[in-house]
């Protein structure tokens, strides 16, 4: 199970603890909120010291898995009209420092959806919560150790004429000339890959420094590198690894044993979050 680290940015005066308690006091049916066509909710919550453990589910109403055995054919589940597949996502909030450790479930509730759920709970008075992923600084050391680079991908967002140019006194003449230079593409992706067993003669560290220097705001005010990835390996490794040179986030993989129902049990998931939380204590700054 993949786990990620986020910094929770709360608006001034907003009490998340109160919001969680308030939601937890409601019956399940009243906790649902629609997100991308499916209902999601905070299903369960426990407080241990400063650590607020929550479990979210996304009620996936579209297609899902079947039940199948080695000797039995695949068959569907008997679901009611208001039932779907519950995609579970564990969430841990450390109220003492504002950091969150979140389970990654591809089909489940994503961190942005959690932030929106808490922030927009009171429709009359929505607030902007943000879960900002922690960038992994150790990726630099990893890049340095990978000497065999087989693929480089760089995505560039071109400069677009915008209100910034207007604000600095740009005229319509300059704007119409800039239209000529603008491309119809929002993103330009460049991929350089080597033939099998060979590698590209490029210095990963230099490439990373170059990409970071050119990584702009991505609002179109300047041409900016938005993605830079390499696929690389060390001398002795057999398989290559994809490294994100700009936005590598802090993640870890927890080895969990599924229960008899083939789900990761909640205590195990929460325990994995707690272990990751202890391990990342030095990064929470």
């Amino acid at each position, binding site marked *: 199970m993949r786990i990620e680290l986020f910094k929770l940015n709360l608006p001034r005066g907003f009490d998340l603890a109160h919001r969680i308690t308030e939601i937890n006091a409601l019956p399940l049916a009243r906790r649902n909120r629609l997100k991308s066509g499916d209902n999601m909710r905070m299903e369960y919550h426990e407080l241990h010291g400063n650590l607020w453990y929550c479990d979210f589910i996304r009620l996936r109403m579209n297609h899902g898995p079947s039940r199948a055995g080695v000797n039995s054919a695949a068959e569907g589940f008997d679901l009611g009209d208001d039932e779907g597949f519950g995609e579970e996502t564990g969430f841990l909030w450390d109220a003492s420092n504002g950091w969150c450790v979140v389970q990654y479930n591809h089909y489940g509730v994503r961190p942005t959806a959690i932030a929106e759920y808490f922030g927009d709970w009171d429709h009359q008075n929505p607030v902007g919560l943000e879960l900002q992923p922690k960038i992994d600084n150790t990726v630099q050391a990893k890049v340095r150790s990978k000497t065999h680079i087989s693929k480089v991908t760089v995505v560039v967002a071109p400069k677009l004429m915008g209100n910034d140019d207007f604000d600095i006194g740009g005229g319509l003449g300059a704007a119409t000339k800039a239209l000529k230079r603008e491309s*119809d593409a929002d993103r330009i992706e460049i991929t350089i890959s080597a033939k099998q067993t060979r590698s590209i003669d490029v210095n990963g560290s230099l490439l990373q420094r170059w990409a970071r220097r050119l990584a702009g705001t991505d609002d179109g005010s300047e041409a900016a590198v938005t993605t830079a990835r390499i696929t690389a390996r060390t001398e002795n490794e057999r398989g290559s690894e994809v490294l994100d040179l700009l936005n590598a986030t802090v993640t870890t993989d927890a080895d969990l044993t599924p229960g008899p129902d083939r789900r990761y049990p909640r205590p195990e998931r929460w325990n994995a979050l707690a272990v990751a939380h202890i391990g990342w204590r030095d990064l929470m700054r």
Partner: protein
Amino acid sequence: MKPRHFERIYPYLFAGALAVAFWYLHVAFPAGADILNASITIGAILIGFLATAKSIIATLTTEKWQRFKATLFFGLLTSYLEEAIYASLFYCIFCMVGYFVRPAWYGEVWFLLSMLTLLTFVRISHHLTGIISNV
């Protein structure tokens, strides 16, 4: 002076300067109505052209154009277009008034409005050409 500020005022600036030169040189305004007929015809042609240009830009749908429309430059474009249309309209009305009454200063003001109509038209047609060929 920033490029946009110059772009905004240059038709007025040059029209004013040329009108002052016209006054200084004591050029006599021609008698008769022929010049007024010709002026109204030119003004009407310009209004017709600008109205057509307005309908052309209203039908543009490319992605580049949509992006351009979302910027403050679009407001600038429409204001230049409006200035050119109103300058031409006012020019025609002023020429029509000339059929009935021509005070001593009529020639200078006619020249000022002629230059203003011409320069605001040159400004907008230059930008419209740039837009239509680039989006």
